[in-house]
C-alpha cells in the first residue's frame, strides 16, 4: 500500500544508453512531479503533470522526456545518458488543492515523495 512508488530503486548503466524510470501513485492525486537530487543533495524540480497535462517544464535537456499515460503514472525517459545525469531522481504527487478562505483554491498542496531512483551512469 505504498503511496508513491518508483522503479527501479537502483539503476546502473553505460553512457549513451536510453533508460526509463517509472512512478506510480495510489493517492488519487491530480499532479505529479519529477525532481533531481544531485551529489550535493540539492533538489530541483524538472517536470510536473496535472491530469496528464504538462504544467512545469524547467530548463532540462530534451534528452529527458516525461510521459503520463494516466493520472496515476508519470514516467521519465532519458535518452543518450551522460555522466552528469548520475543523481537521485524523485517522483512526487500532490492533490489539486483545497478550497481555502473565500473559496480560493490552494493548488500548492503537500507533495508526497517516492523513495527515489539512484541512477549511476558509467
Amino acid at each position, binding site marked *: 500500500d505504498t503511496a*508513491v512508488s518508483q522503479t527501479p530503486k537502483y539503476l546502473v548503466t553505460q553512457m549513451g544508453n536510453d533508460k526509463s524510470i517509472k512512478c506510480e501513485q495510489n493517492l488519487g492525486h491530480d*499532479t505529479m*512531479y519529477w525532481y533531481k537530487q544531485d551529489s*550535493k*543533495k*540539492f*533538489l*530541483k*524540480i524538472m517536470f*510536473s503533470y*496535472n491530469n496528464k497535462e504538462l*504544467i*512545469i517544464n524547467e530548463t532540462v535537456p530534451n534528452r529527458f522526456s516525461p510521459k503520463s499515460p494516466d493520472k496515476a503514472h508519470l514516467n521519465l525517459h532519458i535518452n543518450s545518458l551522460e555522466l552528469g545525469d548520475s543523481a537521485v531522481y*524523485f517522483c*512526487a504527487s*500532490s492533490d489539486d488543492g483545497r478550497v*481555502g*478562505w473565500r473559496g480560493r483554491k*490552494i*493548488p*500548492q498542496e*503537500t*507533495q*508526497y*515523495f*517516492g*523513495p*527515489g531512483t539512484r541512477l549511476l551512469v558509467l
Partner: protein
Amino acid sequence: AQSVTQPDIHITVSEGASLELRCNYSYGATPYLFWYVQSPGQGLQLLLKYFSGDTLVQGIKGFEAEFKRSQSSFNLRKPSVHWSDAAEYFCAVGGIDYKLSFGAGTTVTVRA
C-alpha cells in the same frame, strides 16, 4: 523568483539537547512553507507545513516551526533530539504555481 536559504550546512548536536534549523525564504506573495526530512538512502518525509493561520505549527516526531513574516523565516525546532533525528533536513517554499523550491539542506549529526 522564489528561493530558500538554509544558512547552516551541517549541525552537530548532543542527544537530548535542543535543535534549531534556520530557513529564510524569498517569495513575492503569501508563501506555503514546508520542512522535509530525508534519512540516509531514503525519500523525503514531510515534517510539517504552513499555509495560513497560527504561525507556530506542530509537526511529527516532536518538531515545530515558526513562521515570521517580518523576517522571512520559517525555523524548525525540537526541544530534545533523539539519535534517530540524524538526517538531512530541507526547507521548501511553494506558491500557487505548483513549484516547490528547496533549500540546499542541513545535515544534522547527533552525538551520544
